[in-house]
């Protein structure tokens, strides 16, 4: 309760949370909100400027941009959740085991691989992985997830390294608690806060990454509306129909801002190092 109150006092964090909430509402009620079928082509109204009929205008196939942006929210949320979910699924257990058992595997295999992966610019890495896996939404998610995993390995491992020396972990060992229980009952819950913060911030990057991969044609395939692929298709029309790029671009900007504000807000209340 106290945590919630503290969070509410953090203005920017609340704004972030509201933006994300708005995004979720839009994604869930996309069918009700969107006035048109996002994939319905209307050759009578190709590239029409924003009007009361088409709030954000139409694209080169006469599709309603507003409806496509609304349905694109679904893809973006999926992208954020799935990519970060995959990253956590890979990163958290590896970080836990690596930090708890230490030794050769931790130092020479896990951490050096993490170093190597983090030495690449993230997008190049995701690009390379999805080029190997092939185009498509699922593969794009896997590529982004793998690309994010090192950050989770690092942050989880760092937490474990501090926590494993805490006296209550020693106490649990001295009582005779098994390693698995120590890891999941004692260490993980206490390591969770920074992981949650990292996850929120990673979701913002996940949305950008999905948009970028889709923009490059490796993510969501046409005609499914994704903000990134919309940008991709509209870029050749930039001089003729700027609105076709502006609206999906603004949607990306707003949502990424929302996740970042939320992440910073959570950090303020959850991370004792930042807390004043």
């Amino acid at each position, binding site marked *: 309760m106290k945590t919630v109150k503290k969070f509410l006092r953090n203005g920017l964090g609340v704004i972030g949370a509201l933006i994300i909430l708005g995004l979720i509402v839009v994604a869930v009620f996309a069918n009700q909100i969107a006035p048109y079928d996002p994939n319905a082509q209307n050759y009578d109204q190709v590239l029409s400027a924003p009007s009361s009929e088409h709030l954000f205008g139409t694209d080169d196939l006469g599709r309603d941009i507003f409806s496509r942006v609304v349905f694109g929210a679904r893809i973006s949320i999926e992208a954020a959740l799935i990519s970060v979910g995959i990253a956590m699924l890979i990163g958290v257990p590896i970080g836990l085991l690596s930090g708890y058992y230490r030794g050769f595997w931790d130092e020479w295999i896990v951490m050096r691989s993490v170093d190597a992966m983090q030495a690449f610019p993230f997008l190049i890495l995701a690009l390379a992985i999805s080029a190997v896996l092939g185009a498509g939404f699922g593969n794009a998610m896997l590529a982004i997830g793998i690309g994010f995993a090192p950050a989770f390995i690092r942050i989880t491992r760092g937490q474990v390294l501090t926590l494993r020396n805490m006296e209550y972990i020693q*106490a649990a060992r001295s009582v005779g608690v098994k390693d698995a229980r120590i890891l999941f009952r004692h260490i993980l819950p206490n390591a969770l806060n920074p992981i949650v913060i990292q996850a929120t911030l990673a979701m913002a990057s996940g949305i950008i990454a999905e948009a970028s991969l889709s923009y490059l044609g490796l993510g969501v395939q046409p005609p499914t509306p994704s903000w990134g692929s919309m940008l991709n298709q509209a870029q050749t029309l930039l001089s003729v129909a700027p609105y076709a790029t502006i609206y999906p671009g603004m949607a990306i900007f707003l949502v990424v801002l929302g996740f970042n504000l939320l992440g910073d807000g959570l950090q303020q209340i959850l991370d004792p190092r930042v807390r004043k």
Partner: protein
Amino acid sequence: MTPLLEVKGLQQYFPIKSGFLKKTTGYVKAVDGIDLKVYPGETLGIVGESGCGKSTTGRTILRLLEPTAGEVWFDGKDLAKLSKEEMRRMRKDLQMIFQDPYASLNPRMTIKQILMESLMVHKIGTTAERERIIEEIIEVVGLRKEHLNRHPHDFSGGQRQRIGIARALVVKPKLIIADEPVSALDVSIQSQVLNLLKDLKKEFNLTLMFISHDLSVVKHLCDRIAVMYLGRVVEIADKRTLFENPSHPYTRALLSAVPVAKPRQKRERILLQGDLPSPANPPSGCTFHPRCPYATEICKTKAPSLSDIGAGQLVSCHLVQSGQLK
């Protein structure tokens, strides 16, 4: 009487790693060959200053740290040779009380969950029995049943240390190692916890190894006392002998350094020169010789070993053993 715990030649060396390839370039000899016996029902105090290895000794006996060498005989088994799983089961009989009551309780668990965990991992009793055991033990340590559903942060330092004691007691261990259990507490709270420990000793016939830097506290609670210096035991004796007739020069200096709450009483004080040498590079011979006011040539070259100078008083000092130092 056969000892409950017998430690023989226990060593705990921590490697010092340096360079890019993390090569081991030396060792911190935190515990450097210790022999100890703890008899059933007694309280053995281990006293010494920071860096003397007293806490490391406790943790190595319990295999919270893996010993570098040595034997730890407990109940007919060498703990140092048990597999991890055998040792884990053994922990039912060997419990620990930690120093910092703020850090030694998981902040996310309730007191009930903390106590229940000990019973659960050793499969003691049915759920109903466990509830009863926990309700009993919480009152034994001076708290109430209502406290069980709260979290550690709802308690004061003294109350938390009572919870730590309850956690150690709840599985009815044969030996408890208490590592500075009162040094984080204010004096008025410290006395409450010391009295509680004294009561528990009687009520449960506890065997206790009590690690502390505070000589007065050790004297108050313990039956026999071992004094450690730089990873070794320099003197062991029963309480009365040690305080009335301290033999090792370090023990003498340590006793004389304790400030006494009697302003008019002026005492002869042995002021030791210099600081504790680094356990990574201990002095040759007797490790105390650079600070010892009585040191002679032999002390610089030959390391003394513990030997009985009468009445079960073991001292590790050439001068005392040869009668040069009375």
